[in-house]
């Protein structure tokens, strides 16, 4: 795997050194100026998040790196951790200074246990180099990082479920508000950021907000790391500016002629070929970076079946719209496959999907019907009146 050009052109620790020379409000101001939005999917402005946590009064605060990467089709956080772990830890340390936290926790998914020895070695090296621990780089800054292993639950990528797991509970999302920036791990103010967000923050501190803003769109600044898989010639990890069109992206990855592209993983949107001119950015098609290309031969019902199996399996089961709604949608896909679904029932299922988007407690249930709804909308002619031979 080739290292990512932008991340590998960064001078080591230049961002951290810059942060040391700035006051806490100035670091946050730089982040706000850059317009960086969270890379985990939700796209919350990072500077604003840090500012909330910095403003909160507490004896103890935490910086949490969300390395639970579980969205189907996403693997860029793994590559960033393998190739640029230093940059991620540098970003966490900068966040620690900005909000006034002394502890950082990396929540690493159980499936990535094989990355742990390597990451622990990088942490040890940083402690020896005085980049972690007490008196970082000769200043009075104190910050250290530990790794917590996840135990195999997609829902723990949701920040409040992640905190529940850290505290030793079932990974069941909490009501928000209160948000983690006020009431996070152990009830203390906590910043939860994606791996890529933290690495990007280190780059921004080094090169400045204007450098970051020069790429991307006004609303979605900077570069974004994409995980590309599915029916294309060159699957892998890519770096593209925010605002790239689906068509341009397909050209780069060798996926021209695709039938549809799933942007944002199973919880994202299914974009048909007629809409390939749309742009990937928070103002149009938002994404955490997962791109799955579907070639002409793919049956969109098989795709939906796979996604809904995933959500039925991974729903935490806490609230009814999601626990039962995903099951109903899955049964609906099975009926469609067998050619036994009436138009009236399909419409009812779509109404159920709308309800789930409104009534579910967390992002999983709110976004799990998206793929179903977009396939029904865009590929209707493919779905109805199937004969049994399709099964």
């Amino acid at each position, binding site marked *: 795997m080739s290292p990512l050009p932008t991340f590998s052109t960064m001078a080591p620790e230049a961002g951290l050194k810059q942060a040391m020379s700035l006051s806490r409000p100035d670091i946050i101001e730089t982040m706000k100026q850059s317009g960086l939005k969270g890379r985990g999917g939700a796209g919350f402005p990072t500077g604003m998040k840090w500012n909330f946590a910095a403003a909160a009064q507490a004896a103890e605060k935490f910086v949490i790196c969300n390395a639970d*990467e*579980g*969205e*189907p*089709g*996403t*693997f860029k*956080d*793994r590559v960033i951790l393998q190739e640029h772990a230093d940059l991620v830890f540098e970003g966490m340390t900068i966040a620690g200074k900005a909000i006034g936290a002394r502890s950082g926790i990396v929540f690493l*998914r*159980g*499936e*990535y*246990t*094989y990355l742990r020895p390597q990451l622990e070695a990088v942490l040890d090296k940083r402690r020896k180099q005085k980049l972690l621990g007490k008196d970082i780089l000769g200043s009075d800054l104190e910050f250290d990082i530990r790794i*917590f*292993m*996840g*135990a*195999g*639950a*997609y829902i723990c990528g949701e920040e409040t479920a992640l905190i529940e*797991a*850290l*505290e*030793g*509970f*079932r*990974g069941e999302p909490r009501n928000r508000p209160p948000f983690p920036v006020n009431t996070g791990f*152990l009830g203390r103010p906590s910043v939860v950021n994606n791996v890529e967000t933290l690495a990007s923050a280190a780059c921004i501190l080094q090169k400045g907000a204007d450098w970051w803003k020069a790429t991307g769109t006004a609303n979605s600044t900077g570069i974004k790391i994409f*995980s*590309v*898989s*599915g*029916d294309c010639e060159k*699957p*892998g*990890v890519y770096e593209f500016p925010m605002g790239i069109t689906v068509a341009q992206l397909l050209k780069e990855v060798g996926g021209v002629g695709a039938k549809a592209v*799933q942007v944002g993983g*199973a919880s994202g949107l299914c974009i048909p070929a007629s809409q390939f001119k749309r742009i990937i950015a928070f103002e149009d098609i938002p994404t955490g970076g997962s791109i*799955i290309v579907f070639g002409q031969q*793919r049956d969109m019902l*098989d*795709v939906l079946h*796979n*996604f809904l*199996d*995933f959500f039925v*399996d*991974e729903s*935490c089961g806490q609230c009814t719209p999601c626990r039962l709604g995903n099951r109903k949608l899955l049964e609906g896909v099975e009926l469609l496959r067998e050619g036994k679904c009436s138009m009236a029932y399909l419409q009812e299922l779509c109404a159920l999907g709308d309800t789930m988007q409104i009534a579910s407690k967390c992002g999983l249930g709110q976004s799990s019907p998206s793929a179903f709804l977009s396939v029904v909308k865009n590929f209707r002619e493919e779905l109805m009146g199937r004969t049994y031979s399709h099964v």
Partner: protein
Amino acid sequence: MLMTDRERLAGEIKALAEKHGNCRTALIPIVQEIKQKYRKVDDFAMQVIADQLGIHPVEVYSVVSFYAFLGSAAHGKYIIRLCRTISCDMQGKERVMRQMENDLGIRFGETTADGKFSLEWANCMGMCDQGPAMLVNEKVYTHVTPEKVHEILEECRRSFGVHATEQKEVYLV
């Protein structure tokens, strides 16, 4: 359970609890380490963990049963987790599954009678560009094909000792 075994397990749990700070936040790390070593977390272990952390054993059970990688039931020495999510599905995970079941003589969700292998499904494991992907314990395998299945199983079997390789393979009806 042998009394001496019990004492030893209780001692280990106590030491783990101390290492992880003797409070609720230690729960998942303790269970992970016990599971890693004993391949199960039985009622006795859950009771001791509960006593150590000052919580009800049902609380321990509720956490253990929530997470795919915990779970109280015993599993084989090697847990094979094949990814069933979309990109691996499109790259042919179905045939890998069939061959895996044929070569081990068990279905997904089962453990071989000799306690050596368990077959489980996993959701996307971050190797989508190199599918079909699977984990054998902590090790990741990519671009798995039905032909490679045998090779991977033999690699595991070699760790059982010289006489354990080339086991008779079964035909699954």
